């Protein structure tokens, strides 16, 4: 029975759909998280009677052949990189990106990762690091006696030192953009690494054309929309159930056949 395996592909696809949706819902409050969506494609078609084949020697052709599809497969699970909302946290080293850019982070293995989660802190040396302690490039050190840190939209980091009235510039953030940001490879902990699909990073300063600007004391929330996730979940669950019903019905047909004798 073909219908058994066809329905099985349908159930597997819907299971993946539910997995993607549950990951989105689980990351609803993850800073800088971008929601994902599963995209499906139909499988090969079996031609039992070809469209357009000659149906007589008078030149008539079959207007609609018999094509039986063999089910469904996952085409891609793609990330929708729309801007998330901005959440005011009041922490001086929480930085949100408004626009397309990514922060660059040095991983312990020497590779560079990219992230949009701007919840940074200072390490014992005063360097700006991520919540995992990885240095945010290009490596900005805040002097120990700084009493106030200001980061402007163009990424300039200024510190007001004790006993001084003028703020001094201590560093400058830069951002990376990609030709195809959804093609970045997520490695967990809100980090991404570059792939052949994303293209090479272009480095620029915040405020440059296409890079986006920074906003201090804000964090970008995830762009998951709870209402649309729940409605997708309902659709996926019902589709799963219906495919299961097809399996039951196909099974019953087979049992009818095997009970003939």
């Amino acid at each position, binding site marked *: 029975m073909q219908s058994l395996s066809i329905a099985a592909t349908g159930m597997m696809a819907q299971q993946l759909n539910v997995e993607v949706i549950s990951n989105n819902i689980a990351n609803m409050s993850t800073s800088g998280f971008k929601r994902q969506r599963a995209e499906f494609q139909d499988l090969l078609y079996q031609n039992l009677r070809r469209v357009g084949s000659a149906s007589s020697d008078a030149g008539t052709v079959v207007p609609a052949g018999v094509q039986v599809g063999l089910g469904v497969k996952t085409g891609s699970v793609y990330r929708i990189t729309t801007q998330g909302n901005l959440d005011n946290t009041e922490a001086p080293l929480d930085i949100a990106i408004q*626009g397309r850019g990514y922060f660059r982070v040095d991983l312990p293995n020497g590779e560079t990762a990219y992230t949009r989660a701007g919840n940074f802190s200072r390490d014992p040396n005063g360097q700006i690091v991520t919540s995992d302690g990885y240095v945010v490039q290009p490596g900005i050190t805040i002097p120990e006696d700084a009493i106030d840190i200001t980061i402007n939209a163009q990424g300039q980091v200024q510190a007001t030192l004790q006993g001084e009235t003028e703020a001094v510039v201590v560093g400058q953030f830069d951002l990376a953009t990609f030709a195809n940001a959804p093609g970045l490879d997520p490695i967990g902990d809100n980090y991404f690494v570059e792939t052949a699909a994303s293209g090479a990073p272009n480095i620029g300063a915040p405020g440059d054309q296409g890079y986006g600007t920074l906003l201090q004391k804000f964090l970008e929330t995830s762009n998951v929309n709870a209402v649309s996730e729940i409605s997708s979940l309902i659709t996926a669950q019902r589709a799963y159930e219906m495919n299961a019903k097809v399996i039951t019905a196909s099974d019953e047909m087979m049992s009818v056949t095997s009970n003939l004798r």
Partner: protein
Amino acid sequence: MENALLIGLTRQMTLKREMALVANNLANMNTTGFKAEQPLFEEYLMPVARDDSPNKRLSFVLDRGVQRNLADGGLKTTDNPMDFAISGDGFFKVQTPEGIRYTRNGHFQLDGTGRLVTDNGHPLLAEGDAPVFFSTEETEIEVAADGTISTELGERGKITVVAFDNPRDMKKTGNNMFETDQPEIEAEGTRIIQGALESSNVQAIEEMTRMIDVLRSYTSASKLVEQADEMKRRAIQELGGRNN
């Protein structure tokens, strides 16, 4: 005598195939741009051996074709700027290694070179059969209802939407693609909607009722075969039994 078995068999064969179509429709309930299909059956009249035969004419079932429902599926907004839905009769044109293919699935993305491609990496063709490229400076991509693409750098081409005289004649090749030899004609009255995808036009309720119908018809066709078999068995037993 054998005819009852064979007629029952033709029905069962076609029902099995119809079940496969129902299963495929339901499996693709969430496939973007999918078009539901249903089989067309035809009666095949068996010519009788003699005109004055006392037999009735026999008729078998044949599946003659698959009819595709080309109605628009619902629009599902995704807010992704690279997702496009076509409202009205028309197809996107995609260059694949096997040749030009057509699709209603408007989910595209950029590849590493900034080219607009499908999930499988095949480029979407815009006006003049050229792929669409974006540079890294272009962040705001806007597609108008007529397919005109514009960014910060101005107009960047126009997505082609083509139509055909007989779209039902197109062949599905999988991956949401269609293939045809028909000449392209200009699509009329179509609109491109950015940030949305056309969902599959499979009607779940219709498919479920069809599934029940197939199951019951199969059971009764199988009953017919069973009874014909039983008749034959009895005939052999009673007529061909021991002569005593």
